[in-house]
């Protein structure tokens, strides 16, 4: 269970992982995540919170740190009307759930909410309302469940070499 942080369209990777902190490692990048858009974001966000955004989330450069910063801050998922392709790839491979919502109408900042990855739903607790999302395909959920591509491959390779 977490709270909703609501953002607009075209949140790009430079807002998520600001260029000037790229050399500082993921701690520094995460501490400045979204600061140009929401100066309080990195300090206000708690483990389990959910980011809800409009179109084209994660646009811009291919830097993996954009998704890594969100995961580092403990977000349980990003829900958006659409995602930039490379960001979507990076998010899955870093173990950050990303779900497409047909509509984000009626979802408000601060709403208490919960994501069900296997059913592909976002439940707004106080509003007793469930928003249907496009479920993530099972093969991608398996990567997320293992915590990202590298741990996923480790498990898989261990299985394959097991006697």
């Amino acid at each position, binding site marked *: 269970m977490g709270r909703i942080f609501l953002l607009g369209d075209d949140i790009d990777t430079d807002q998520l992982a600001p260029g000037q902190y790229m050399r500082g490692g993921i701690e520094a990048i995460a501490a400045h995540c979204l600061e140009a858009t929401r100066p309080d974001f990195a300090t206000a966000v708690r483990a389990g919170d959910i980011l809800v955004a409009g179109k084209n989330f994660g646009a811009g450069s291919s830097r993996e740190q954009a998704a890594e910063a969100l995961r580092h801050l403990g977000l349980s998922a990003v829900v958006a009307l659409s995602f*930039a392709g490379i960001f*979507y790839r990076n998010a899955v*491979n*870093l173990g950050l759930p990303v779900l497409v919502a047909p509509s984000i109408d009626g979802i408000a900042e601060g709403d208490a909410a919960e994501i069900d990855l296997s059913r592909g739903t976002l439940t707004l607790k106080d509003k007793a309302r469930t928003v249907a999302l496009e479920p993530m395909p099972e*093969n*991608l959920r398996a*990567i997320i469940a293992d915590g990202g591509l*590298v741990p996923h491959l480790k498990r*898989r*390779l261990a299985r394959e070499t097991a006697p």
Partner: protein
Amino acid sequence: MSATLAEKIIARAAGRASVHPGEVVTAAVDLAMIHDSGGPRRVEPILKDLGVGLWDSERVVLISDHFVPGDTEEGAAILQLTRAWAREKGVRFHDGEGICHVVLPESGQLRPGQFVVGGDSHSPTGGAFGAFMFGIGATEMAGVLATGEIWVKVPETILIEWQGQLGAGVMAKDIVLALCGRLGMDGGRYQAIEYTGAAIAALGMQERMTLANMAAELGGQVGLIAPDATTAAFLRSVGATVPDLSDLRTDADAQVAEHHRFDASSLPPQVAAPHSPANAMDVDAAGPTRVDIAYIGACTGAKYTDLAAAASLLRGRRLAPDVELLVAPSSKRDQDRAAEEGIMAVFEEMGAKILPNACGICAGYGTHRLDAGVTCISSTARNFRGRMGDKESMVWLGSPLTVAASALRGRITDPREVL
């Protein structure tokens, strides 16, 4: 059932009869290309962590280009590591032969219909040959090298049709810059861009490569061109077998997301102002812009065809005073051919500096990085702030012909004035 070229290639690689846009499938990779920058030094630690070797060394192509010639301590160390890894793993290794996107097809290993990944953002270049080739980061590349597989979300197809014929003095680079200006850098939406139409069919392979290469600037996952007789002739010229090409095309009744139509005949040469390819405009809109450096280089703009075009305009003429012309041929093979045909002599005789067959200043490396306040007209693909040197340098993008014309006049010049 009708399908797009992208869907046909992915379906085959995924072992499926058909696939649909939006579906996520796991595909078997036919070929994986890596270079010295994003390759061994980044993937090996992950492979070590996974505790595995390569899934198939025969399908891994390593090309050194970013740090060649290794004239810094860091570059030399990276090249050493790269070479040692190549020996240890027994992969196909092209060392110092040129830029990966140009060397790969020249090596005869890239073929129509293949599903290919590259550890570089301009990997869509392979789409010129009708291969579904896209760029991935080091983590995903390590996954491919370990397993030979990757997941892919089947893209929609954006058809970009150019009818008519390009006029004299206008090149593929002008087509793709015009697209960057009109569709923007997100216009491709990470979907499959496919170039079609009479103007595209008339282009040689290296001109097609320029279009496919800059599908990256258009935001496409791939930039495809259906293979044809021109493709087949190129494959034979590099000793590759020509596969059955008959079905490697988008069916006429296949569902596409967008279909843009443009007229090549009325397209003037284009330039893109600093600091984005999306700042493209007709060359005469650039106004009187003085240039200090004219750069013919990169995978995008210094292939044999690019060198030949530039030389055709420069032959027998003189550089404008205070303009420096830098030429970094994309590959050794292309440079050798250009030398045999007297093209390199044209550059040399007019005092151009010939740089190594490598990424060089396009990747921000080497001794010719641009200084603050310098204005450069460049045949490369991107002009983001600071990419080719100091943050206060200004880079304009243009075709090799426009770069050559500008070198003669000392200001950004429409090559048609000089033809």
